[in-house]
């Protein structure tokens, strides 16, 4: 069993890795030049090139992938020669990058060809003074180079006396500035260190906005799961042991109908009936405070009901099929011929074996549940992960899509691992292999 578990875990890691590669290349490499999207169609190639450099998009894809996944501060640190650290901006509360120069936190800026060092003061402000002349190092072609951290969270390479023209996007349009560095490494800690970067849509760190969404979704999906599973398994088992009888027909036909009705249709009618006509339950998920989900549990009633309607049928059908198969098996025959009472045959002999097949499928089905969650969240305006992904995808907010998709995939894979464990627990053939 140890072997089986270890295998599952290793395979899980490889899977997550593959997913991250697929996701990154599909979105960032596969979808072309995003600077057009950011700068608009009127931008010139020069402006776009400048912007690509600032965003680090001129690096080769593999490097960008590595930066995205595991961060690049360590790589940048090897250029700057200083450890790079993040420190929260006391005003905005957002993390800023600094170089740790002998215990002092420093950044640099270039104004009119002159390099200045900004030293962070305890009150959060910074002290600007001209940088020492000895920071410059002679590069390969005789240029004087300096790798430092700029004020926008990049590790950058300045060339002494030769600032690059840089294009900056403002609400007033694109503006050219001098004094730019030659090369940028936009610093990031990387996904594995919980820094998926900034949202292109809001330019806020994705992690900050994602967290409360994930919490809401986990509650929604969790409640739905807790409602659906026992009910569906019970219905499936009841239908399975009564194969061919009217109760089986009723359950089977109802669950087929429920499965075949898309959740968005179910949801729309639930809203109409319970939210608008009867006004019994909140029609949409209006979160008047961040803890609304706890203050007013009724808020998730309709989303949960919608998810239940679709999932219930599917799981019940799976369980029924499994139960029918088990009830037809030789060991059930043995149990009956041993003269075991029917209840004992069902409960002791059949149920456990019948649950083995659906459990793994149910866990795989968590993917489906997450898909359903996307639809339900969009339908009900529920501020959760699914709606987040949807909004981000519609906007083309890659960092957000990547982070949220990685998260859902991780959740899906984790539940599958749990499913594997449950299967192992239920199935002695693996447990004692």
């Amino acid at each position, binding site marked *: 069993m140890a072997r089986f578990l270890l295998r599952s875990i290793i395979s899980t890691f490889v899977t997550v890795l593959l997913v991250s590669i697929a996701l990154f290349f599909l979105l960032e490499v596969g979808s072309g030049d995003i600077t057009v999207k950011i700068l608009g169609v009127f931008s010139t190639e020069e402006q776009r090139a400048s912007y690509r450099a600032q965003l680090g998009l001129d690096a080769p894809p593999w490097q960008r992938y590595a930066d995205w996944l595991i961060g690049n501060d360590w790589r940048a640190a090897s250029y700057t020669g200083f450890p790079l650290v993040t420190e929260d901006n006391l*005003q905005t509360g957002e993390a800023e990058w600094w170089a740790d120069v002998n215990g002092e936190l420093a950044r640099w800026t270039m104004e009119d060809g002159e390099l200045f060092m900004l030293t962070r003061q305890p009150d959060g402000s910074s002290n600007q003074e001209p940088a020492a002349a000895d920071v410059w190092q002679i590069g390969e072609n005789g240029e004087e180079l300096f790798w430092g951290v700029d004020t926008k969270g990049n590790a950058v390479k300045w060339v002494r006396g030769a600032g690059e023209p840089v294009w900056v996007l*403002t609400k007033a349009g694109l503006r050219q500035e001098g004094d730019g560095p030659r090369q940028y490494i936009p610093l990031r800690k990387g996904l594995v260190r919980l820094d998926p970067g900034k949202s292109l849509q809001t330019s806020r760190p994705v992690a900050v906005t994602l967290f409360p969404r994930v919490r809401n979704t986990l509650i929604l999906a969790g409640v739905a799961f807790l409602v659906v599973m026992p009910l569906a398994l019970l219905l499936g088992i009841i239908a399975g042991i009564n194969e061919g009888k009217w109760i089986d027909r009723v359950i089977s036909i109802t669950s087929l109908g429920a499965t075949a009705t898309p959740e968005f249709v179910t949801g729309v009618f639930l809203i109409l009936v319970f939210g608008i006509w009867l006004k019994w339950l909140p029609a949409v998920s209006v979160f008047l405070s961040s803890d609304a989900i706890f203050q007013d549990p009724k808020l998730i009633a309709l989303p949960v009901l919608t998810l239940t309607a679709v999932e219930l049928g599917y799981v019940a059908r799976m369980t029924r099929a499994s139960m029918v198969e088990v009830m037809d098996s030789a060991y059930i025959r043995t149990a009956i011929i041993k003269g075991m009472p029917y209840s004992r045959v069902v409960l002791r002999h059949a149920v456990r074996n019948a649950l083995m097949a659906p459990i793994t499928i149910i866990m795989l089905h968590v993917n489906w549940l997450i898909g359903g969650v996307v639809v339900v969240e969009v339908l009900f305006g529920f501020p959760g992960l699914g709606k987040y992904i949807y909004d981000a995808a519609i906007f083309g907010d890659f960092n957000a899509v990547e982070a949220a998709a990685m998260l859902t995939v991780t959740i899906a894979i984790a539940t599958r691992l749990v499913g594997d464990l449950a299967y192992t627990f239920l199935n002695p053939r693996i447990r004692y292999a």
Partner: protein
Amino acid sequence: MSNSERIHPLVLQAQDKLAAGRIDRREFLRYATLLGTSLTAATVLAACGQTADAPAAETAAEPAAPAEESAAADAPTEAPAGGIVRGGTLRRAMTLPLIDHPARFSWTQQANVARQIGEYLTLTGPDNITHPYLLESWEASDDVKTWTLNLRQGIKFNNGDELTADDVMFTFGQWLDESVGSSMLGLLSYLGGIDNVEKVDDYTIRLNLESANIGVPEHLFHYPAIILHRDFEGDYIKQPIGTGAFTLEEYAEGERAVLKARSDYWQMGEDGSPLPYLDEIIYVALDKDASVAALQSGQVDSMFQPRPVDWQALSAFPGVTVKAASTAQCFILRVRVDLEPWDDNRVRTALKMCQDREKILQLSYYGEGDLSIDAHVAPVHPAYAEKPIPAYDPEGAMALLEEYAAEKGVELPLKVTLATKNDESEPEIAAALKELALPGGFDITLDITEPGGYWDRWTEVDLGITSWTHRALDTMVLPLAYSEEAIGAWNETRWVDEEFDTLVRQAEGTLDVEARRELMSQIEDIMQDRGPIGNSYWKRVWNITSTAFHGIEAHPTDFDLLYEVWRDA
């Protein structure tokens, strides 16, 4: 100061015209306030000029008790059925993007939250008329190059500081600072930089424009133009200091904004206490479809910017009030005149003749708009010269095309591809046009993409439908979209016409509405005659709010003016 108001000479001229019935009262008000006459004075003048047919209510123009129409210019209020009630919460559904520096705003939604906290020097009301707000009044020199802004006194920020010219100077400085990156910078380009903004005294600021511009008051109500406190550091959420009626309680980007009433607001309510009437405003981030359901189930009271389909869903719904406002928003059917066949005016004209405006309006906008001529000047614009709405004339179009086809040796129907985005009403307009243009000799293929896809190429397609937003003045959009300089930027049609250009330049420096209308009339004729666009109608926008709320109006640019809104107990 307000009592000894200097009246611009042109205002007095206008008053004569009003009396003579050559301009209507609304135009006069607009015109008078445009020239810096305070609203109070303007309404009085209007009353004087319009002795015969002015409704009784309007003559009693008391600032303390604004009557219906004039009050609308100041703040939208209905005549309350009973007494005004204080208290209550307004829950309004609206998306909530990131807010940092107001000068950098790019969404109305950001401004709608911020404008409850901070305020503007001027205010363009739901009727598209601009008047002083934080300003007591403004004065323009006769050449319209010098503008004097007189600040209202005694207004306090919510941190207790008084509003002075220093705050306004600071705010101008932010707008014009390149490193802030405000869109005001481009808008005020005629100002020529911060050096041309001059503090005369603590309550007076003078603007010395480099080139004449009549749109200064409108521009001061541009949504990023919130007046900031002089100590503002760049993040409005961290420093929500403003003169507005509400203070910021919570701002959760993408989720909700909670605003609480302030007790020492500078404007007084009808009951003699400071506004606002409401205790609290909560903006909740919901998308449109969810908003409609939430409004129907009573989970929110109001929704931001309802789409036509939302209007359709809610207009008959019991318990909500739907109010409409005419705008200069439109769906422009535009062609690239540098490309075949649109370089030939006969083809352009033929296409324009294929618009059955009434039908297109019905099909795409439920009839909720104002029919338009094929010019980018709207009836809500002050200088609009009224023209007959062209009729649907497929035969005429066919005749023109036959002529063209015979000359060029091409076959009819003419095969063209119409590009647009799958957004509010564009697909329906496109589909309707496809049907309508077939008897006119056009075989239109539709190329409808998601909005982003269209915006990626909107200036490049040869035939397309582009949505244009509302601009308060006629002279704002014409040079933007139909000039030589704008090619490579906003000029999506590449249409440049010397005569047109001259007229537009002239109009830009013409304050006299009557004179400008003369120019506009010619401009409209030129556009109709040989211009690159067809335009079937001007959109209306709606405000849809629970019937429990009073004093909430539709605004052409969807600006939320909520300080005089009250709800039934």
